[in-house]
């Protein structure tokens, strides 16, 4: 029941991302999603969560809920970009695509039964949905920062999938993944800054016309 509620909140944050028109709001939504995933990791474990579970959950929540948004908002400020999202696909079409993607991922999830089947049946669907939304955000948004957000959402989806599939993934693996993502976001933040310094915008659409 509480697991389902958190999963639905994750779905809602994804829909909010699809409909958002301000970059600041999108970054904050991804932050909320990160904290929700931390809660999810705690609740998905049956019985008393061990120390490593606590470490991964709290570490993930802090990293995704506080550090990443802070890094991205700082990059936004220093790159001095406009606050509009500038989508290729408008918010209404994005929302409709999101609902369709949700239907598809629920249908797929029913075809992919879990080996132990102990977890909520929506878990796999939400994981697939997050991955699809992340891919969609990467493809359908112009600004580099939206693509970083799409990457993060996709990673969140994979993380959810991991929670669903693995009873207790090794601490080292989890920490390694988290470190990878951290470095990725860090590098992307710096890259963002340099793109905007070089070209006065972070519009990746314009980058296709570059010549050497």
């Amino acid at each position, binding site marked *: 029941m509480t697991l389902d509620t958190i999963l639905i909140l994750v779905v*809602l944050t994804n*829909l909010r991302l699809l409909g958002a028109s301000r970059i600041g709001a999108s970054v904050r939504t991804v932050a909320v999603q990160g904290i929700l995933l931390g809660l999810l990791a705690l609740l998905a474990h049956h019985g008393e969560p061990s120390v490593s579970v606590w470490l991964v959950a709290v570490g993930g929540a802090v990293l995704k809920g506080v550090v990443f948004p802070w890094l991205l908002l700082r990059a936004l400020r220093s790159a001095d970009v406009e606050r509009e999202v500038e989508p290729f696909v408008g918010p*209404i079409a994005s929302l409709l695509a999101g609902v369709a993607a949700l239907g598809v991922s629920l249908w797929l999830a029913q075809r992919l039964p879990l080996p132990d089947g102990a977890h909520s049946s929506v878990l796999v669907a939400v994981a697939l949905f997050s991955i699809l939304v992340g891919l969609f955000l990467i493809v359908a948004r112009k600004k580099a920062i939206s693509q970083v957000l799409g990457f993060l959402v996709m990673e969140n989806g994979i993380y959810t999938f991991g929670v669903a599939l693995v009873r207790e993934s090794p601490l080292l693996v989890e920490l390694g993944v988290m470190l990878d993502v951290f470095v990725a976001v860090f590098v992307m933040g710096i890259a963002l800054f340099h793109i905007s310094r070089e070209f006065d915008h972070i519009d990746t659409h314009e980058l296709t016309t570059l010549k050497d």
Partner: protein
Amino acid sequence: MQATSLIQPVLALVLSPLMFGVINRTKAWFAGRRGPPVLQAYYDLSKLLRKGAVYSRTTTWVFRAGPIVGLAAVLVATVLVPLGGEPAPLAFTGDLILLACVLGLMRFFTVTAALDTGSSFEGMGASREVTFSALAEPALLLGLAAMARLTGSLSLSGMSTAMALETWRQAGPVLALVTAALMVVLLAENARLPVDDPNTHLELTMIHEVMALDHCGPDLAFILYGAALKLWVLAALLVGLMLPVRTGNAWLDIGAGLGAMFAVAVAVGVVESSMARLRLLRVPQLLVGAGALAALALILTLK
């Protein structure tokens, strides 16, 4: 049909203008004003009914039929919605479609009456009304479909009687999603704030008000009363389907339902005091968002 199921329509006829009074009082309280009397809508109605009507020579019978058919349609809607666990006087399988249809009929006649005046100004309001309601209706129907799927009943009264505290415990997220979607539909259909500002008479922002500009006297009273009843119907739909108070005593249940109705009115007032009107371009986004919530609820009940 039990005698107690007649209570809701009678209450609707008597108390619906009071909803406006409660909303205005809430807004006045937020703004630190005294506000109009709670019974102001009744005074307006009695004043308008004593006046005569003036009709432009360019209008036809459509213009005169608009307010009457609109009021008649919404009166039919009042006997379809349940309140406080009591079945509605008129309940049959699929009456939720009739509810949407009757509200659509009311809108159709309001819109054609506005177009009949030939004023480009009213045509603009009519166009907006139709655009937004075309987006609000899927949200309403998807939400009701989710409720039908959840309770296993295709009638509004059946859904209402099936609702209990246990349903909230089992399917809380679905119910919360449908509630949110229905609340947005209520705000949009009644031309309340984030969609339309009932206070302004500025041509660029009006939707509902602009369509009633050429009506006067009793016709305007019918439109005002019809709007009050429509607010009542949608609020009763929300309360009747969602409020899980079922004590078994009809009077207690209806009392609780009535309290929740005015809580909805207060909530509308709070929304209006704390939010600005959305840009017209953003309104479809809100309505599609509500539709997405309802669709999510339906998908969750289907799995």
